[in-house]
């Protein structure tokens, strides 16, 4: 970013809380501006920690999303306390337990992007960049994608996103958000050990999901969040306890099915969605990857970063 901008960490927590209460705080993630309102202190603390390096504005003329995280205006404010996420006054979700407020902001923003940004085809996948080329890691929950993404983002790969690969149909480039990485249960300890200097948001517990928290994205990925990258590899990761690292080439036709099945808006995009995915898969090398140790995975992906698909300039 060439012109000077203020980072969230430049604000004191008290100042941030004030702006959030007033609904005038607008966070920049990639090319998107999200104006956030919240009177909840844990939400403010979480933003201060997880988005410390991100640019922000106060009361900008234009924001892409206007969101709010607040307690419900009914009995659930007091009894079995809950929290709501609103996008422009609408509630797309049922409320969550009160202590999950910071996480709800993250999931809510994910939904905003997946539900309304049709200038891109959005894939439920992690996306990282190295030497100008991007890797896309589509994966259903439980595949270890986020853990792998967190590890790679601290070992030479720039984080674009852990949840949402944003692909431009015209340029086929992947666009970045550089937002906090969502991690659960054992992955939390794994990454803490892997990267002792990592910075974390608050941890919550839920009977369905278990322990949940977010990891602050590396500084470099935030600094370069306006730089898109050209996807060169599509890799489907699968964590398997005790497994040696194994990278196997994958049929493009098979990749096409699974890739589109992991897309949020493939259907609504119709012909354009088909065309974009088809061209993307044609330009990428496609693999399955099973592993059990993060260090193994880092090594394999180091090797992969040197294997340019045919036709790459």
């Amino acid at each position, binding site marked *: 970013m060439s012109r000077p901008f203020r980072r969230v960490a430049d604000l004191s927590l008290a100042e941030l809380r004030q702006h959030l209460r007033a609904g005038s705080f607008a966070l920049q993630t990639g090319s998107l501006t999200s104006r956030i309102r919240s009177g909840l202190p844990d939400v403010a603390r979480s933003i201060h920690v997880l988005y410390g390096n991100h640019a922000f504005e106060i*009361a900008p003329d234009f924001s892409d999303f*206007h969101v709010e995280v607040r307690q419900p205006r*009914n009995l659930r404010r007091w009894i079995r306390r809950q929290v709501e996420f609103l996008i422009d006054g609408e509630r797309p*979700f*049922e409320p*969550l337990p009160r202590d999950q407020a910071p996480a709800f902001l993250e999931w809510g923003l994910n939904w905003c992007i997946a539900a309304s940004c049709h*200038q891109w085809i959005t894939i439920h996948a992690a996306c990282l960049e190295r030497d100008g080329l991007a890797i896309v890691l589509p994966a259903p929950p439980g595949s270890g994608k986020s853990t792998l993404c967190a590890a790679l983002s601290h070992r030479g790969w720039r984080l674009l996103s852990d949840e949402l690969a944003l692909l431009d149909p015209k340029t086929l480039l992947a666009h970045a958000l550089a937002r906090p990485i969502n991690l659960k249960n054992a992955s939390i300890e794994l990454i803490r050990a892997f990267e002792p200097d990592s910075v974390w948001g608050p941890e919550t517990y839920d009977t369905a999901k278990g322990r949940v928290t977010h990891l602050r994205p590396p500084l470099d990925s935030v600094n370069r969040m306006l730089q898109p990258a050209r996807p060169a590899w599509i890799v489907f990761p699968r964590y398997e306890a005790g497994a040696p690292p194994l990278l196997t080439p994958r049929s493009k036709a098979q990749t096409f099915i699974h890739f589109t099945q992991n897309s949020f808006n493939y*259907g*609504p995009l*119709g012909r354009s969605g088909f065309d974009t995915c088809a061209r993307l898969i044609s330009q990428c090398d496609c693999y399955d990857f099973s592993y059990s140790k993060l260090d193994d995975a880092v090594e394999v992906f180091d090797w992969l970063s040197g294997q340019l698909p045919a036709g790459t300039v």
Partner: protein
Amino acid sequence: MSNCVTIAARDFVELIRFPERAVAISLAQWDSLLRVAKHTNLIGRLAEGVICKGIHQNLPPKVRTHLDSAYVLTTHQREAIGWELRHISKALKNVDTDIVVLKGAAYVLRGSSAAQGRLFGDVDVLVARTALNNTEAALMVHGWTAGQHDPYDQKFYRQWMHEIPPMTNRARGTVIDVHHNILPTIARNCPNVDLLLAASQPVPNTTFRTFCATDMVIHSATHLFHESELQNGLRDLFDLDSLLTEFSVASTDFWIELADRAALLRLELPVYLALRLTKAIIGTSVPGQVLAKLESSMQPVSRRIKALEAIYLRALMPDHPGCGNHWSTTLARGAVFLRGHFLRMPPTLLSWHLSRKLVIRLFRNTSRST
């Protein structure tokens, strides 16, 4: 939000009618305009209007992104309705009934200007009541499921309403609403559906029919003025404006036919309100003698009707911070909410239904779910 620039509700309507005027507004006003447009489900119309009027390139890039996104959705959705109808046609080909396509899907089938920029939800069809079971069964065979409705909701739909519970297609996630009338059978002014079916017209090259022109308008008006939730109210008014303009240009007899038909179906009130309100809010050219004819068949036009008109005039305005969230709109919407429910079912049933919904909301979501 604290210091956001708001757009007056009237100005919002003008900008949807005349999108070329939006080239003069500020970025801050665009912020509000886009949000209100999304909230009222009119962003598609705004996007198509902006492109049609050739001002797309003059707009700020951030604004263009949102409009482009909406445009992508609306153009593809129009196509998707066509695909969905093909699937439905295939599924129902052995069911012995006429299938009348309603509302948005009908606008697409007829190539009506009301389909422009419209975002579609479910596909609505109407079949003979006697064919309901076979229709439901055929849909289930072809991959639609009845959805997760508890036994109360099931009973509510089947016994009191004019439709069976919505069915979702497992493979595509699309939803179909199968109706057997345009109003609940227990509603006070439920029309004779045989009259509607008899006047329906086949759509060439398809197995479907749609209502005739007057009935399409009457259905749209009836639906709007029996609705309890009005978030789509303004959008429905714009639909009505498109239909009225299109049909009145196509046939000089349209207005008189509309009034006569409304009287025959005993649905003068919603049609009267529709004409009065599209004229007042959107500026639709409605001939005075049509209104006079409707007034005479509802003699006398009571204070109650005039009060209703005033309520709807406020209630149809966008209820959104971008428009200032005027208290009178919220109040009017509250009045409409009750009226909508009241019209559809008898009062004793109404209070049970509403209180049950409240109880469920309070206790349904525990800490275990997402």
